[in-house]
């Protein structure tokens, strides 16, 4: 089964051409290797910077800049005693739930705004006003309404993630050319068929860009809510480390977030490339 068919399957596009496998589709390992080899130069700079850090902090002991090896040891301690892992899982849980809600809301509303004039007319002012409000401005109000539990964190993450997904889904839904729309008409597709067979696949690359933008935002927001609510997650882990002046644990927390963010983004890029493989075939790979 080709990556394209998988994509279509997820969109509920029904049976597609599941014929003899064509030219070999890149596997996950190959994709991952390609991902890193194409970024080898950038990664060597990162490693160089880390090496400089390690040397500097070893030669000249500074409490505010501990050697990486010490940070690593502390990181391993916290992984082994389980509190860092628990904090990460908690943050990821909030991220995932908020992100899932945001994806459904953003894709459905954004897509329909792009395809149904009445939905656009009704929702455009509301969306345009709401998205101007910085999410931080809503924090006090939402704490008042929802307290500092799960629902507060999830709502904040969802609000932050919805708009990039919604706006990109809207743009994707608008991206269908007149020729494509007439093609649907001449093949007698009804409204639903047009959306499923043409609207959604055409919008998919845009939707994925929106989802990737939102992913970066959600992680940030999930960390912040943990700090703000001061009760759970990697944000709270970092806050706690700061309060007891444990700089090594602080860095361990920060590096953990950076690594998670990087891996999530990389995974997303690879998924995106597979789902929209048809886009890169005619042009040179970037």
């Amino acid at each position: 089964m080709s990556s394209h068919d998988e994509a279509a399957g997820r969109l509920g596009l029904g049976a597609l051409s599941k014929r003899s496998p064509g030219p070999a589709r890149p596997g996950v390992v190959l994709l991952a290797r390609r991902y890193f080899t194409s970024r080898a130069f950038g990664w060597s700079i990162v490693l160089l910077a880390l090496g400089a850090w390690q040397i500097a902090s070893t030669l000249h002991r500074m409490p505010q800049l501990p050697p990486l090896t010490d940070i690593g040891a502390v990181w391993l301690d916290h992984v082994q005693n389980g509190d860092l892992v628990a904090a990460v899982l908690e943050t990821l849980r909030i991220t995932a739930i908020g992100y899932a809600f945001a994806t459904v809301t953003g894709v459905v509303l954004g897509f329909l705004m792009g395809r149904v004039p009445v939905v656009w007319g009704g929702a455009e002012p509301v969306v345009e006003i709401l998205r101007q409000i910085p999410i931080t401005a809503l924090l006090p109000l939402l704490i008042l309404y929802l307290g500092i539990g799960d629902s507060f964190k999830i709502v904040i993450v969802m609000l932050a993630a919805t708009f990039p997904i919604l706006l990109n889904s809207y743009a994707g839904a608008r991206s269908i050319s007149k020729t494509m729309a007439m093609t649907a008409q001449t093949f007698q597709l009804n409204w639903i068929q047009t959306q499923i067979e043409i609207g959604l696949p055409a919008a998919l690359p845009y939707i994925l860009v929106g989802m990737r933008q939102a992913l970066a935002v959600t992680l940030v927001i999930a960390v912040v809510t943990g700090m703000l609510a001061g009760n759970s997650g990697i944000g709270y882990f970092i806050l706690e480390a700061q309060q007891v002046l444990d700089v090594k644990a602080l860095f361990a927390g920060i590096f953990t977030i950076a690594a998670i963010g990087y891996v999530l983004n990389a995974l997303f890029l690879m998924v995106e490339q597979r789902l929209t493989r048809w886009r890169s075939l005619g042009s040179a790979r970037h």
Partner: protein
Amino acid sequence: MTSEGVSIRVSAVSKRYRSARGEDVTGLSPVSLSIADGTFVSIVGRSGCGKSTLLRLVAGLEAPSGGGIAVHGSPVSRPPDSVRYLFQNYGESLLPWRTVGGNIQFGLRHAYRRSILTDRAGIGAVIDEKLAEVGLAGTADRYPSELSGGMQQRVAIARALASEPQILLLDEPFSAVDALSRANLQDLLLRIWQSHALTIVFVTHDIDEALYLSDRVLVLQPNGGGLQMDVDVPLPRPRHQIETRRAPAFVEMRSDILKRVLAPN
């Protein structure tokens, strides 16, 4: 008025547009004509003469401002199910996220007569058959973006054929492909027209192409002025790219039409 043997009947059809400045513009002055089953008709004329407009009206992709169109006797209010339309910008008409085979399957799924083929092997066989018919055997797993312009238009033709139309409307389908591919595509279209017993309406600005392909050439007046000439083309078939084009009758008809098209009015 009987519809026996008539594919398309156009009765005093006109089209007016409102321009961006709010002016009323004539897209097409009233035109009446009927096209017999199984004929190959071309519509030629200068840019802006309304030839593409007329085709979109027949296709049910636009609504006329006056008059009416009937396809096989039924009035057109939406795209008729026995009609398929091929666009000049085929690149925007093929589904780029589907393979060539997937595009043809799209045609099969939205066929005029609901296909009884549901098993995968049957569908695969039909896809291969349609691809072979347009000279693209073995490309089912490629994506449209991997193909040249002429090949993409072949896929569009195969996709239209897969939906088993009775009438094919083509809007300057070969104007964006190179001259050699165009000649091949013309002959391909003639073969398909004959083997599928289609009625074809073909819009082009190329008078040679119109004469080479058609049983009948309609010439439209400039600026949506309506029908100017209705020429029967009694050239023998099968047509031949070199023989037909240098036949005295061909040359004579071409200069007749050209004179009228170029004449200041």
